[in-house]
């Protein structure tokens, strides 16, 4: 009902095609396209550090989108997403250095390889749910981490692996400015892919399994197959995200792909909104920019009379970490349904202003 009343005046739909678009209205679609075009011009007037953050948003965002397909849309849970992200990173470097596969090919290949690994770990996971599944996927996190540490041929062991920069059409994407476009392209492609998946057959099947798996089965959806597939697709996304990370940094080491990263991915999608594509992006942007914003916020303390003592200056890093925790807790208490839900409520408010509904 709300989607009907929220449609602007005069927006009449005369075909099913018009009723089946990714964006709710033409205006929103135009705004999205304009936003992407504006983002394309960003390297010209934004400094390198912000570009780094944007690239970070892109590769983390792709991986988080995968986790949201698994957790938000299929209702399964995974605590091993960080490890799959790392597997993608190592796989793209490994495919490139061991088999001389060009980087632009090794990125999708690494995605599919991660998908295969994810489905292998998802095989038992397709049969269990809830907390039990959380523990099972926790095992996959540690198994893969251990694999990184031991498999020298794959990950370079404790030395890590070097990754070549991405080269395409004779252009080397080894600067922030140039890789930014690769990251933006990948992000947009993968998000459109997710949108289309979710409005076609298999995406609906995922949500059906989440909402009522018994009746989903009666409707002809094979539960194990789709739970496994969801695991695979989520690992695929994690793999692609990781595979972008490797050629960007030029070096991959196992240290970064711990359970902490997995929890961070979960935090992103919970803050952004489970079961929402735009929420995923919002959550990732929030989680990437929050430390930066708080960094500058707590550094203000240094200039005050109270804060200009060695104890506070030395403790700024900790104050920042605590503030991040505080903001996240605050979010979960006041907006448990995520940023996407808050966004919808803000839109509602303005649509109906000055009435409450």
């Amino acid at each position, binding site marked *: 009902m709300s989607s009907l009343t929220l449609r602007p005046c005069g927006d009449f739909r005369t075909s099913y095609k018009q009723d089946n678009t990714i964006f709710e209205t033409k205006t929103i679609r135009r705004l999205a396209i304009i936003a992407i075009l504006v983002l394309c011009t960003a390297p010209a007037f934004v400094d390198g550090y912000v570009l780094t953050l944007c690239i970070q948003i892109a590769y983390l965002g792709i991986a988080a989108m995968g986790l949201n397909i698994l957790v938000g849309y299929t209702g399964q849970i995974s605590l091993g997403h960080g490890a799959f992200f790392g597997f993608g990173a190592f796989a793209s470097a490994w495919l490139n250095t061991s088999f001389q596969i060009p980087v632009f090919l090794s990125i999708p290949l690494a995605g599919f390889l991660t998908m295969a690994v994810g489905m292998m770990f998802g095989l038992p996971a397709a049969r269990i749910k809830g907390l039990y599944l959380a523990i099972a996927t926790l095992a996959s996190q540690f198994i893969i981490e251990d694999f990184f540490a031991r498999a020298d041929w794959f990950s370079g062991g404790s030395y890590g692996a070097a990754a070549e920069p991405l080269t395409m059409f004779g252009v080397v994407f080894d600067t922030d400015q140039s890789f930014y476009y690769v990251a933006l392209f990948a992000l947009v492609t993968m998000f459109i892919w997710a949108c289309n998946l979710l409005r076609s057959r298999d995406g609906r099947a995922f*949500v059906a399994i989440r909402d009522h798996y018994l009746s989903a089965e009666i409707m002809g959806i094979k539960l194990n197959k789709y739970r496994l597939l969801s695991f695979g697709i989520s690992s695929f996304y994690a793999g692609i995200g990781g595979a972008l990370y490797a050629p960007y940094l030029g070096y991959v080491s196992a240290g970064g792909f711990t359970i902490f990263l997995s929890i961070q991915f979960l935090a992103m999608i919970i803050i952004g909104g489970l079961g929402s594509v735009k929420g995923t992006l919002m959550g990732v942007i929030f989680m990437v920019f929050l430390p930066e914003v708080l960094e500058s916020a707590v550094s203000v303390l240094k200039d005050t009379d109270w804060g200009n003592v060695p104890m506070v200056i030395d403790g700024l890093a900790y104050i920042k970490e605590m503030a991040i925790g505080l903001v996240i807790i605050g979010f979960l208490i006041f907006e448990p349904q995520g940023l996407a839900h808050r966004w919808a409520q803000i839109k509602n408010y303005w649509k109906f202003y000055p009435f409450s509904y």
Partner: protein
Amino acid sequence: MTESILKIEQVSLAFGGVKALSDVSFEVKKGSVFSIIGPNGAGKTSMLNCISGRYQPNSGKINFQGNDITDLAPNDRADLGMGRTFQNLALFGHLSVLDNIMVGRHHLLKNNWLTGPLYWASNAQKEELEHRRKVEEVIDFLEISHIRKSVAGTLSYGLRKRVELARAMALNPKLILLDEPMAGMNLEEKEDMARYVLDLNEEFDITVVMIEHDMGVVMDISHEVMVLDFGKKLICGLPDQVMADPHVKRAYLGIEDEEIQEAS
């Protein structure tokens, strides 16, 4: 009307020591409305669950359109043309009504996780739109066009029941299993639902197997009625025959034993 679409042979089902069904056999004729009645705990829903594949019977055979489906998974039975609704609502609460019904088309859609996302390049879009048209036919038939964009979880009870029926109909079933389609409805909604059941039976040529407690509705719209009591089949026959049967009166309809004795 003579050919049978569903044949249940000697089906028994036990949960530990509880015998939910013992040696139940019956046949459902093609194109008929077949009702299963009986007191609470008689095994009606267990019977339906055996047919739809939720439970595996301990012994006996279930034959659907000439195929033995006893060991078939529930999702494969949808492909064969069997739809069902649930006693307690089982809609996908966060999906819109339209998407709920589109899930019913699942086994008729061909695109998968690789071709679906290539929406414009593959034929996914074309397929979606074609099936949308079919879904709209069902929506029109059940008169739920005003709520097609609503989130299913926000609807009233009567409408949810109707959406569930729509979802089962979208499967293009030959046989539809309805578990108490009129439970908890007011008179007006019951009348509507009875009309829909009759219409889908006659217009769409769907055979109906229905569990229902409202005797008035059951006797009015069924071609055949089966009575279950403590997992056993008491009688199966025309509504009038069943109504007149003294065992049924005692087990279910609630007439004192003395009255029966007096009458006989």
